């Protein structure tokens, strides 16, 4: 936990410097008749972030925060496995939106999560994997008229839209 506190402080400090540099692409000083330049607000806020990171690292060095005093691991093996499994599953799920669209990605995600992560029966998995995209489609596309990504499955939906409209 102690090392993680330091790493997070350093990474966020570097990110703050990047934000300051990026903000300075616009004027950060006073412009006559216009007031502060467009980059001033984010620049000084990023400077505030950097100062906070310096304070966080200083307090880490002084062992002030509970995290900087803790010898326990940031994540134990089981937590890391759970985190990675979920994070990767959501990443793949979002990635699939681009390829097979929302209505292809949702059943795949549910099958993976319910059957392989949750160990549920095929019957229950199928019920959720089939009903969730149908409910989502009816709610978003038909009731709210909000179009979700469909990837290469787009042409398959044309007859359905013809039916409803």
């Amino acid at each position: 936990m102690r090392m993680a506190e330091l790493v997070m402080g350093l990474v966020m400090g570097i990110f703050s410097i990047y934000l300051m540099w990026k903000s300075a692409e616009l004027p950060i000083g006073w412009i006559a008749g216009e007031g502060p330049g467009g980059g001033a607000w984010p620049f000084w806020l990023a400077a505030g972030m950097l100062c906070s990171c310096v304070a966080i690292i200083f307090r880490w060095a002084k062992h002030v925060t509970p995290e900087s005093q803790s010898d326990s691991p940031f994540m134990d093996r089981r937590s890391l496995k759970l985190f990675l499994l979920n994070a990767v599953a959501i990443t793949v799920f979002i990635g699939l939106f681009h390829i097979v669209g929302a209505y292809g990605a949702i059943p795949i995600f549910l099958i993976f999560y319910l059957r392989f992560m949750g160990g549920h029966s095929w019957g229950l998995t199928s019920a959720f994997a089939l009903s969730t995209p149908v409910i989502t489609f009816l709610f978003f596309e038909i009731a709210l008229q909000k179009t979700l990504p469909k990837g290469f499955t787009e042409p398959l939906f044309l007859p359905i839209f013809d039916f409803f409209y």
Partner: protein
Amino acid sequence: METLTLLIDGFAIAFEPLNLVLVIVGCALGLFIGAMPGLGSVNGVAILLPMTFLVPPTGAVIFLAAIYYGAMYGGAISSIMLGIPGASTAVATTFDGRPLALKGLADKALVAAATASFVGGTISVILFTLFAPPLAEVALTFGAPEIFALMLMAFATFVGLGGDDIPKTLFSICIGLVFGAVGLDIISGEPRLIFGGLPGFFHGINFLVLAIGIYGIAEMLWTIEVSQGEVMISQASVSFKRILANLRELKLTLKTMVMGSFLGYFVGILPAAGATPGALMAYGLAKTISKDRESFGKGNVDGVVAPEAANNAASTGAMLPMLTLGIPGSPTTAILLGGMVIWGLEPGPLLFVEHKEFVWGLIASLYAANLFSLLINIAFIPAFIWVLRLPFTILAPIIFILCIVGGFVPTMDMHDVWLMLIFGVVGYLMRKLNYPMAPAVLAIVLGPLAEPALRQSLLISGGSFSIFFTRPFASVISVLALILLLLPVAKLLYEKYLK
């Protein structure tokens, strides 16, 4: 008298068939969302906000306010039944609610929580009705310096009263404000902070992307790690006879409920304080004034009613500065404020003049939401318990799907969905290191309002910050904000040298 007339008009709007349906559906959804571990009112409002674009703005806000109210009721359900707070606002309810459930008195705890929520909600809505219009009149005199001073005070409250690590709180505020500045500069129109030249950044970072990332994805990852699949469910039997008996016993706790309601309401009004500190303070006060302090933490009903009355009262209190000053008192009201801006309802003093029917319709709907939340809560306690028995491996993917779809719908841009995932993962890692996330969400909402107020103020004063200390209201608010900012330093010095 005028207030009464306006309130009656408000009831006419709140009881329009569509609005009434929205109140009932909102309360039921809110109860369910609030009861789910890992989700609270802020998650419910954030996830369901995109779904309100089908109804008129008044109905949309009424719907979200009902979800907010329902979720405040529902948070207690998983605190009592699972020992996992449905939201941070229900943390204090766990202290005595869970021991009551383990003693086989879950129904008593659930009825006490629902009744206290009703009392807290009702007292706070009455206070809201009485104090909202005069505060709005004062707020009408506010210009850019006063508005910026108020924003400063909102952030200073987090620093002074938030109770979190100060440098981490400041970092969270600053990063939220920087993210709020992404997009086109409001004055020059030039692109600003366009990372990697990605076109998705030109329209700025929608506050929902950050809110769902933090309160949806990050919170779920956190719950999955904390529960590790070992969530214990309590048995509860609920019958009409037992509910009546429990209600009769609650007379003894009325004093605690009223105390919690007043305390919660006034803590809720403070920008950034919100329902969580309100509930914790009420619990602490109830324990301090109790004659039976030893039983707190072991299943004392006062320990359930005090935080529950306070968190509901605070949720109404937080709406007061949001509607009258445009300053949200909690992350949920920050999201409500964002929603109102989307619907063309600019929160602030003019709202009470230009959109009277909206304001009073909303206030009246709070009375209705309070009543319906109580009825739905008590009637559906067995059903909620059944849903909570669903394995987390079924609930989690459904919540993830809601987050992803909810993040896509506002802008219809996959860029925002990826951004939401990044916020979720980074937010989870930061939360593990005790970085408070609520200030970042508040900041991304307030940032686009604070920046023009600051720039206009400085333009008026020719670049001098003295403008914040020379106008009556601005100077009082600025001094208060500075006191709050310096409070941690004063505490530190007191503890080091005087204690």
